């Protein structure tokens, strides 16, 4: 048999396979060059970038929880300019699409970061992280309010000609409502889910483990919630979806595709196994071979309910 066709495209971004690396879990890419072939994966998503460099939160920033981990990195990043100068040149030499994850501390910043990236060669698309508190609106999170999310998406859209993925927060009553709002505002694709807000307590010290008190839960523990949300959104919204949450192996990834995702992102798994993204793409392909499936895209949304 021929090798199965593993390629997919999300909002015009063509990928050799559906496995992308999730923002914040793959550094700026180069960190992993020793552990996997960067040209074996579908796409790389950068650490979340903001207009100015950001220091992030005090420590401790991470803690393990049952089947998962909490992080409160606080979006530490080098800032968009340093990324363009110091990180992008390396990535340009890698034949794999680079997608820049971005966020703003204010609505305007979202627009500015997007504008800064527009027209830059070597950036295949942008992923807008809307899970940030809107300082001006009293800390309400852009990603949990449909109106605020739409404002962000519209503004970014105005400032970019690149494919725009909007990354949804799971900390909402109705993820479909958020998805529709972002679709209406011009998103080209949706990725989900970002982390669930959680907390860990150090009983002996009677304190939160994380300096930031709460953090974002990721890893296998959240996979059922992520699958459910992908499935719900897939039935309600026409946009291509990228499934994220607790994907540890090829089977997990294929489940997300059955639920309706066109591609997937691998996050926490890269911490346990720095070559996880490559391995997972390989496992997916092997599954297709074993089951005599010609093309991975035939599985998208193929769940029978």
């Amino acid at each position, binding site marked *: 048999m021929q090798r199965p066709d593993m390629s997919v495209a999300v909002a015009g971004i063509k990928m050799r396979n559906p496995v992308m690396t999730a923002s914040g879990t793959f550094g700026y890419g180069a*960190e992993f060059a020793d552990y996997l072939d960067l040209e074996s994966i579908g796409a790389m998503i950068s650490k979340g970038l903001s207009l100015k460099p950001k*220091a992030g939160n005090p420590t401790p920033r991470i803690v393990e929880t049952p089947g998962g981990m909490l992080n409160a990195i606080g979006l530490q990043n080098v800032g968009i300019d340093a990324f363009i100068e110091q990180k992008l040149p390396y990535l340009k030499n890698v034949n794999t699409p680079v997608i820049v994850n971005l966020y703003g501390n204010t609505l305007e910043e979202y627009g500015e970061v997007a504008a800064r990236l527009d027209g830059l060669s070597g950036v295949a698309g942008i992923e807008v992280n809307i899970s940030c508190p809107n300082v001006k609106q009293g800390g309400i999170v852009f990603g949990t309010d449909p109106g605020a999310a739409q404002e962000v998406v519209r503004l970014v859209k105005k400032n970019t000609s690149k494919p725009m993925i909007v990354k949804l927060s799971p900390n909402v009553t109705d993820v479909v409502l958020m998805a529709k709002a972002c679709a209406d505002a011009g998103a080209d694709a949706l990725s989900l889910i970002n982390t669930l807000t959680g907390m860990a307590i150090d009983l002996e010290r009677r304190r939160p483990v994380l300096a930031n008190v709460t953090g974002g839960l990721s890893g296998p523990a959240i996979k059922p919630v992520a699958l459910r949300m992908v499935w719900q959104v897939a039935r309600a919204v026409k946009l291509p979806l990228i499934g994220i949450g607790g994907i*540890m192996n090829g089977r997990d990834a294929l489940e997300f595709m059955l639920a309706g995702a066109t591609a997937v992102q691998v996050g926490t798994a*890269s911490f346990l196994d720095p070559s996880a993204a490559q391995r997972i793409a390989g496992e997916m392909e092997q599954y297709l071979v074993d089951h005599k499936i010609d093309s991975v895209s035939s599985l998208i949304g193929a769940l029978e309910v």
Partner: protein
Amino acid sequence: MSNVELSPNYFRMRMTAPQELLASAPGQFLMLKVTDAIDPLLRRPFGLFDVGTFTAEYAGCGAQTYCEILYKVVGKGTKLLSALHHGDVVDLLAPLGRGFDLGPAGEEKVLVGGGVGLAPLYYLAKALVERGEKVRLFAGGRNRDDILCITEFERLGVETYVATDDGTLGESGFVTQVLERHLSKGMRIFACGPTPMLDAVAKMSARHEVPCQVSMEAYMACGVGACLGCVMKGANHTEATPDYRCVCKDGPVFDSFDLQWS
């Protein structure tokens, strides 16, 4: 692999390893996936206690690189680790991080270890002794059960000084007090142990104008500088001009001047 209990809750584990580990530097570390299952989920970091090669005769099937760690059982990961035995396989990621800078020849090298902080110092001592350096070890712990492998250091020709909080082995008191009596210019300190001890050593080294490297610990997820979970404040860190360093990538060994102390 082999896995022996050296004293209550302290184990020494030897495992076969990829040959590249022979090129590792003392002070570098590895990360172990303790189980295939998701509990515990994250890898656990351990300093390289030793790296070496079994001869083809000994290994029975071609020369074989091995590495060793020395660890204390403190939680579920190390508990599971302590139950492993001959024939078990454990997944390791190594070498990671920046090791010790051995410094110029001729200086006297002073190693300071608190409890299981001794672990990376043995590999370091071997490297230093190989270069023909004079090496002293100051080892501290709460009680005698915390003082490990002193004989191994002495076999290398290292002069050893021991202190325990309760006086059950060596001098009674903090190892830093013993250290202070012997410290003089022209020495170079390499320290690993609990943060309060490192804090004391860092300050002492500053007072005595002795260069000092410390090996730090932090919660880690990735071990490769990607998650930014393990950061520590650099010397010039302020709220306004933050300066965070990755323990896993920029460390775990730092010049004590490069970090912010209490």
